[in-house]
């Protein structure tokens, strides 16, 4: 796996110095034009926007997934497997198909807005082609990656610790903050990383749920590969995105290693 991953990464890195011919075919080279083009302020704007959307998506997913995972792991009794299946099964359907579905359901004449308009919501209210629409799409698309690690962490949590906290006169909130949160922090961190990474590079949600002011870095990369037919420029953009993500990953891995070391001790 690593060989394939690293080899393709090197290929992307090498081709970011390449050029194209008239038919848009990519050639290896040693041109710095693609790297220099990244200085265009347009890329910075879009990169920052993607970062903001991905952070927001991770935060919303955490807020939604935490109580869901908690309820399933600790309070669902024999329905546990059925409930987990209800979370996971919709994600067996292709992400693209689900997003197309959402964009139709949430369109102006779709069932959701038709109902809201009838209930008195002003006609100027839209969901599709808005920033919240894009984030909603990302949240729906990746929420399962938050639920599963959190669920795993909660299921493995020693519930007797919660009882012990209560026995020691800890209130529900204090027990939650002092016992449950630390015990599930690893799961939450893993969930945040699992949601943040694909959300940052996503282009489907912005394409189907976004408007002119919502495009993400993934859309610009996709445009270079499929529209502009300029793979070297797309590779240079990909490397830029990778660099940003690697900084985040490095922070996470350091944190995880520290926790692991503490756990061993």
């Amino acid at each position, binding site marked *: 796996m690593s060989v394939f*991953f690293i080899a*393709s990464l090197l*290929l*992307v890195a090498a*081709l970011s110095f390449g050029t194209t*011919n*008239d*038919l*848009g075919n990519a050639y290896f080279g040693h041109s710095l034009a693609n790297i220099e*083009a990244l200085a*265009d302020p*347009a*890329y910075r704007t*879009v990169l920052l926007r993607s970062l903001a959307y991905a952070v927001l998506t991770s935060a919303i997913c955490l807020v939604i997934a935490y109580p869901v995972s908690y309820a399933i792991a600790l309070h669902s009794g024999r329905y546990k497997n059925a409930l987990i299946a209800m979370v996971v099964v919709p994600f067996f359907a*292709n*992400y*693209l198909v689900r997003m197309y579905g959402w964009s*139709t359901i949430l369109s*102006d*004449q779709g069932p959701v807005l038709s109902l809201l308009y009838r209930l008195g919501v002003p006609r*100027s209210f839209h969901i599709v*082609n808005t920033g919240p629409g894009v984030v909603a799409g990302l949240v729906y698309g*990746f929420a*399962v990656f938050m639920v*599963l690690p959190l669920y*795993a962490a909660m299921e*493995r949590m020693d519930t007797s610790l919660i009882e012990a906290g209560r026995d020691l006169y800890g209130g529900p909130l204090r027990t939650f903050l002092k016992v449950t949160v630390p015990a599930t922090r*690893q799961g939450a961190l*893993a969930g945040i*990383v*699992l949601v943040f*990474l*694909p959300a940052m*590079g*996503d*282009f489907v949600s912005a394409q*189907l749920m976004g*408007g*002119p*002011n919502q*495009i993400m870095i*993934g859309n610009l*990369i*996709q445009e270079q*590969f*499929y*529209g*502009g*037919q*300029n*793979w070297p420029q*797309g*590779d240079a953009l*990909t490397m830029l995105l990778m660099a940003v993500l*690697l900084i985040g*990953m490095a922070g*996470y*891995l350091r944190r*995880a290693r520290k926790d*692991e070391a503490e756990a061993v001790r």
Partner: protein
Amino acid sequence: MRRRTRSPLSSPPPPPPRSGPDRRSLLRAAAAGSLGLTLTGCAYIPHAESDAAAAVDAEPPLPMEVDGPLVYFNWADYIDPTVKAGFSEEYGVEVIESNFDSMESMIAKMDAGNTYDIIFPSAKWTQLLWQGGQLHKLPLHLLRNGDAVFAHYGYFDNPWYDPGSAHSVPFTMYKTGIGWRKDKLGELTGSWRDMWDGTATGRAFLLDDRDEVLGFASLQLGCGAYAVGHEQLDRMASLVQNLRPRLRAFDSDDYDNLLNGDAWLTQAWSGDMTSVVQQAKDPSVYGFEAAKEGAPVNTDCYAIPANAQHPGTAMLFIDYMLRPENVARNIAYIGYPMPVHGSEHGYEQLVSTLPDCVVTEQDLAANLVFTNGTPAQEAARDACWTNIQAG
């Protein structure tokens, strides 16, 4: 019907991580894996420099006879299936169909080493392909219905993209204009300025297409359909930015946006508008206008790749497709007009409520087309488009 939407290619979600004895490392590995997911898929295709077009042109002329099955490569649903089946039946050959979803992916598949007998490139791609020595020269005199095209549509005797139509036969024609909801906006003025209609603020769309958006701007500034000067590009970008607050999105799905009510006003392709009126519950609420500043026109062509295995069958196929009855059936099915004499009336009836969909001799003669610039010019246009998209 053919859709001009750029389909996003999605990566399937990674399998959900399961808890195990060493959960932390497993989660870390999964996280690293999803980092990989964010990489846009990239498979570098080695490509040998193609022979000069002259070498291909010097080959002996193609025959027009069955020499194997027809390997057919086109947009999905861009032909009446009964016409395709009819060819198979009449000549006793199998039609092996595959589809592309953009010109770029068509080229990528050809360059990856796949061979096709008949392809349907648009005008600018036809030019790139024949200049790269990737298209056979066609013996047009063999086509029994060739006169219906070339004797009646002078434009195609010597189109800009392929002198003498030496390597291509025109298949369909279309133009770009404005599609709108008459019940919401009433009548428009016949100008690209209609995109600024105040009532449609928040319900106006431009196509998500570099050439179309830049063409929309340059035509208004009187710079033709394909401007490349830096100063012109700056002015074009400002013009689009001026419209931006009124726009809901850049989206090439003009057909769905009009039908599902998201769009009251959209830059639109004439062929998609035909589909709108065919699908709409009440076609009378939709309008289409070609702007007086100019409407870009485009052509999709039949072409036979230089490495086709069965070019004789492909020639027969073109000949068969040009028969009047097949032209009529295809027009009714896909909704695009074809430059074949005798088919005009049928198309006019199809778009009786949207007369501007008809591509006239005058539209063709105006020659407002998206050509191929030099690499530097194309790069400047790309940068302009990126800036427009980024906002």
